[in-house]
C-alpha cells in the first residue's frame, strides 16, 4: 500500500485517496475546433508508461483536494507530489 504525500496534509495511507488517471490532460478550450480524432484523443487516449508517470490523485477521505503526483509505475517510487498548476518535480519531467 502506497504512502502518498498529499501536498496539503502530508503523508497519508493510500486508502484515503482516489486515483484520477493521467495528469496534464487539459480540456480543449474550443471543443468545436477539434476534429473527431483530436476529440477522441482527449477523451480516451492515455499513456501507460513503464517508468515515471504523472498522475492525478484526490485526497477523498482527507482534505478532498486534487493534486498531481510523479510515480514510477514499475517500482511505485514516488518522486514527489505537486499542486494543480505547479510544475512536476525535477527528474520527472
Amino acid at each position, binding site marked *: 500500500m502506497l504512502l502518498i504525500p498529499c501536498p496539503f496534509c502530508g503523508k497519508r495511507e493510500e486508502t484515503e485517496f482516489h486515483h484520477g488517471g493521467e495528469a496534464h490532460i487539459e480540456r480543449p478550450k474550443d*471543443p468545436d475546433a477539434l476534429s473527431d480524432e483530436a476529440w477522441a484523443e482527449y477523451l480516451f487516449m492515455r499513456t501507460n508508461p513503464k517508468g515515471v508517470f504523472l498522475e492525478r490523485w484526490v485526497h477523498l477521505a482527507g482534505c478532498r483536494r486534487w493534486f498531481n503526483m510523479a510515480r514510477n509505475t514499475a517500482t511505485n517510487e514516488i518522486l514527489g507530489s505537486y499542486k494543480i498548476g505547479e510544475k512536476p518535480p525535477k527528474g520527472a519531467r
Partner: protein
Amino acid sequence: MAQKNRLTEGGRIDRSKPVNFTFNGHPLQGYAGDTLASALLANGIRVVARSFKYHRPRGIMAAGVEEANALVQLETGDRTLANQQATRIELYEGLSATSINCWPGPNFDLMAINSWFHRLMPAGFYYKTFMWPVAGWKFYEHFIRRAAGLGISPREADPDQYDQMNVHCDVLIVGGGPAGLAAALAAGRSGARVILADEQAQLGGQLLNERCEINGKPALDWVTTAETELADYPDVTILRRTTTFGYYDHNFAGLLETRTAKLTDGGEHTRQRLWHVRAKRVVLATGALERPLIFSDNDRPGVMLANAARSYLTRYGVKVGSRVVVFTNNDDAYRTAIALFEGGVKIACIIDTRSAPDGELPTAALALGIELVDNSTVTGVTGGRGIKSIEVMSLNANADGVTGVPRMIDCDVVASSGGWNPVIHLHSHSGGKAKFDEARGLFIAGETLQASVCIGAANGEFQLDGCLKQGFQAGKKAASLAGLKKSSRRKLPVAETIDETPARILWALPTTKPIGERGKHFLDLQHDVTVADVQLAARDGYKTDEHTKRYTTLGMATDQGKTGNIPGMAVLAQALGVENPGDVGTTTFRPPYTPVTLGAFAGRNVGVLTDPVRMTPMHHWHELSGCTWEDVGQWKRPWYYPQTGETMQDAVNRECLAARNAVAILDASTLGKIDIQGPDAAEFLNRIYTNAWSKLAVGKCRYGLMLREDGMIFDDGVTTRIGENHFLMTTTTGNAATVLGWLEEWLQTEWPDLKVYCNSVTEAWATLSLCGPRARDLLTEFTDDIDLSAEAFPFMALREGTVGGIAARIFRISFTGESSFEVNVPASYGLALWTQLMNAGEKYGITPYGTETMHVLRAEKGYIIVGQETDGTVMPQDLGMDWILSKTKDFLGRRSFARNDSMRADRKQLVGLLPLDKQTVLEEGGQIVAENSTARPLPMIGHVTSSYFSANLERPFALALVTDGRSRMGEQVYIPMKDRNIPAEITSPVFFDPEGERLNG
C-alpha cells in the same frame, strides 16, 4: 505403546505435563511443548495423509512452515480449521484432528487407485482432457472436486472475534532467530521503536533445533537473556506466534498474530490480530528452508528433511525412526547424523553425492564410527506406507546415471538434505529481485525497492557467528537510518565458526532407468508434481517458470512450493538446456507467505458493522409502520407499506391510487443535496448541466441533466436558485457522493478561476414529499405565511416560510406527475412534522408510499431514472430529451454529440411497451425481438428497462430502449421467455396525463 518413539530425556518439552489428543479418532498423548507433528511421531504414527492427485500415503516431512504433506482438519463444527500443517499446531489438551483427502482413512484410501493410472494423468492433464466438449465440464467438475479435495471449511459463522492494529515503527524485524534477535537488541539499545515478529511461540528460530553455543554457553541461554533485555525497552514490541505474511510498497507489512496457544479458540481474547505496520526500516531475518533431494519415490512416509529429523530429536525429544539413513549433498546434514547418533538413534549410514567429503563435520561424523557411502545416490525405496529399505548405487562420471552393483540398506527413515534456500519471499513480495548464487546453487535477495535489508540465513549467511554479526550491524544501521544514532559499547556475542565444504548441486538424481520410468521423483509433494511432469512441460513447449508453474501446478498448493519450487525451476532449466537456473528465474513470490484467516481481514467489520447503514430522520416511524426496505446505496428506504393481508402488488396498487386520487407522502430525505455558492455559481452550472442557468430567477427551480465528456448521461436532478449566488442542487440518491466529487474535480482541476464552493447538505434536511389532489388542502392547515394557491405558488417554484411552526423550504417539484409539495425542514424536525402530517392527513386518506410506488408513478409519466433507463451508453437524444440541450453555450459532453457513434441512425431510443394480453408484467432486462419465432438466437433490437403493473392504467406497462424505436410506434414486438414469446406494442413512453396538466393543479 504410548509414545514409543519418545526419548526418556532431552528436548524442550515438559514431560510432567501430558496432553491428551485424538488423531483420526484414536486417543493419543503428547507433552506440553509438542506440536501435533512431534506428538504423532512420538506415538509412532507414520502415515498422516494422502497426496492430492495420486492419493499416495504420506508422512511428516518437515518440522515447520515448509511441511507439504501433513495437512489436517482441526476440530469440527463452527471452529473447524482446514488444511492446517501439523508441524505448526501447538498441541493442546483435547485437540482433535483428522487426515484430509482420504476416505475411509490414510492407511486405506479408495482413491489410491489413481496411483495405478498415473500414466493417464500427466502434466496439463486437466487442460488436455477436459477441454472438450465444453458441456462435459459439469460432469468432470463433480468428479475432480470430489477426488482432489483438501479440507472442509466450516458451514457455520465463525464464533471468534478478530482485531486489527495499525502501527508505525522505526524498525520492523521479521524473524526472531539469532540474526533477528541480534538486530532487535542493537536497534532497541539505540532507543528505536522496534517490532520484532516471529511465527513461533518461542524466540530462537533455528537455535531451537540445534545444540550449539553462544559465548561458550548454550545458545538458548543467550536467547533468554536477549528476551529479558528487550522486555526492558518500552519501545520494543515482541510479537510471538506472528507471521509476517506480506510485505508491500513503501515499507508496509501485514502481520497475523495468533493470540492463544489453542489455535482454534480465542477463548476470552480475540483469536487473531491483523497488524498493519508501516516501518521506517525493515530487517528481514526470515532464515532459510532446507530443500529435499529429489530421488525416485522420495515421497514415501519416512523420507524427511535432515533438519526436521534433527529438530524432532533436539527440540521435542522424539526419535524419527529406529534406523536412519542421512542422504546429503552438503556438510550441514552431518549435524543431523551426529545429533541423532548421540541421541541414541541408529544411523544406518550417510549417503553423500560428493566424493570423499573432508570438511570438519564429515570428519567428526566418521570419527563416531558412522558409515559413509560417498559419490552415491538412492535409486529406489521399498515400502509403500513406510520405508523398509532403500537401494543405493554409485553415481557415474557425469552424475547423470548410476553404475556398479546396487546395495540394499535396511532403514525406516531417509533424512535428506539438498542444501538451504534463503527465505526471500518477503523481499520478493515488495518488488525485490532474486539473484542466483551459482556456486552455492541458491537464490539470494538482489536489489530491493524498499528501505529494507535481508540478513542472516535469509541473506545466505549460514554460520551462527556471521548471523549474529550481521544482526547487530543491521539493527544498528536500521535504527540510525531511522534517525536514532545512540550507540552502545556492549560486547558482541561470539559463536564458533565451523568451516563447511561446498555442496554438490545435482537437482534430480538418477536411478537405474530414465526419470519417470522407475518410481516418481516428486518436486511438489502437495500437488503431486514430479520431475517427469516438468520435463513434459518443457517438451510441450513451456519455456518460462511462470507458464510451467501454471501448466503443471508446481508450487500452487497451500504450501506455495516452499520446498519444491527451486528444484523445480532447476529441473526446467536442465530440460530446456539452460545452464544456469538463474536464467529461467524463480517465480515471483506473492503474499501471503502462509495462509491468513479471512476473518482477520474482516476484523470487527462483520455482521451489522459490515457496511454503515444510513437512516433518514423518519426511519423509526417507517420501521414501526411495518414497511419493507429497499437498500439504495447505504441508505435504507421504505419500499412499500403492506397492510395486514396485503401482497406487495396490493400495497403498491393502493399507494399508487392514493397518490393520484387523494394525498400520499414520501420520505425523500435521501435525495442528494448539494449547496452551491459563489459569484460564478450560475456560470459553473452552465458548464456542468446541458441547459442554461444564468437567467433562472431567484426562487425558481429547473430540471438539469449532467453528461460525461463522452456525451453519456451521468446524473439528473432539480436545482433551485435560492439567491443570486446561491443554488441548491439535488442528485439521485445513489449518486450523491459521486456528483459532489465530480463538481469538485472540475472546479479544482479545470476551472480553478471560478469562485464557487460546494457542500453536501443531504443530511441537514428532512424532505417530506406530499403529492395528490388533496396535498394542498393538507398543507394549508400547517402554514399561514406561505400562499399555496396555484397562482401564487406555481409549479417549479420555491417558497420559504414555516410549516407546523418549523422553518421550512417548500419546492413545487414533482416526480409523480401530480401536484406536489416537497417540504424541507431541518433534519431534527423531520419526524415531528411527518407524524403531524400523518395525523392531520387521516381525513384526506393520507397514504405513505415507498420507492416502488414512486417508480411506478414516475414510469407512468415516462420520467427516467438514471441507472435504470440509462446504463452509461445512453445519450439525451436517445431518450428524446433534445429539448434540454442548449444550443447557445458549451457544456460537458456536448462535443461528443458529433461523434460517429452518437450520430448512428440505429441507436436505441426510449419507448413505451404495452403487453398485448394486458396481464403480463414483462421482466426488466428482457430482450426484445421483432420476429415471433421459436428459433434461437434471434436478432435483438432492444431491452426492457422498467416494467410494472399500473393500478391507475389498470394494466401492465413498460419502458424500453429499442433500436430506432421512435419510428416503430404501433409496431408489435416480442419478448422471448423460456417457454413463449410475449407480444407487446410499442407506444409513447408517456402513459398518464401526457399534457402534464395535473402538475400545475
